[in-house]
């Protein structure tokens, strides 16, 4: 059903909220608001440092409850576009608690890949209501690490697939 979209490695979600655009902007840029909704089920956002300006950094700490106990995950990135109440673009990579992106060797993968993704949020003021379009895309093609998380996994999967038929 979604076969034709397979070429572009991005999720696009459009939603309308019954809230003014300024408040939706805060959902993304105010740590206290952000913490309330962002964590996936079973996860808590413990840290949300956001220097919301172009070139500013962000660091998100997530506590995930696993059968083996609490697991802390970190995601770091940088704001690329900041147009209040209109457009927010930031990058995201898995990182350590200091915001240093995980290196390829940390990830145990052969080829260099910062595993960076880009989140783009576009807001439209509908007069008290807000339309939001969120695009979460894979590594930008022009980046040095374009091999990407996806390709590394593909490669691993293909490699193992080839071997497992013995």
């Amino acid at each position, binding site marked *: 059903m979604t076969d034709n979209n397979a070429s572009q490695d991005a999720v696009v979600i459009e939603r309308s*909220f019954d809230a003014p655009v300024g408040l939706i902007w805060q959902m993304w840029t105010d740590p206290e608001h952000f913490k309330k909704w962002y964590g996936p089920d079973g996860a808590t956002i413990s840290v949300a440092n956001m220097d919301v300006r172009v070139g500013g950094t962000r660091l998100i700490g997530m506590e995930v409850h696993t059968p083996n106990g609490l697991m802390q995950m970190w995601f770091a990135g940088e704001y690329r576009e900041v147009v209040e109440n209109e457009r927010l673009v930031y990058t995201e990579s898995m990182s350590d608690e200091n915001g240093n992106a995980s290196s390829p060797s940390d990830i145990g993968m052969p080829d260099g890949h910062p595993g960076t993704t880009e989140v783009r949020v576009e807001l439209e003021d509908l007069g008290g209501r807000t339309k939001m379009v969120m695009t979460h895309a894979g590594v930008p093609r022009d980046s040095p690490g374009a091999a990407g998380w996806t390709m590394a996994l593909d490669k691993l999967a293909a490699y193992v697939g080839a071997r497992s038929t013995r």
Partner: protein
Amino acid sequence: MTAAIDDDRLNETFAALANSTRRAILARLAEGAATVNELAEPFELTLPAVSKHIKVLERAGLVQRSHRAQYRPCVLDAAPLEQISTWAEQYRPVWEARFDRMDDYLTQLRPQRKTGAGDD
């Protein structure tokens, strides 16, 4: 097809991959089957610690262990990796759930929303 995505399983796969030792174990297993002893060697970890990591990988379906052989070698199972190799679509349910929560949270804020600030 997207409706068939097993969200829980996907979470487990990502949780399993969110650890550098486990990713290194997978990378080692990509070269071929290995026993727990063999896996433990390069990591300078205790056997119980390595076993714990392998159990997580087993639960996520990324590693299978033979129950026949005495030494029970570990074998990588790439199927869950193939699933998340189209990670973008796989992220859709995560985001949808987030925005559901945002919507709920906005509803909670509504009665307080008078002079802008919604803090307590």
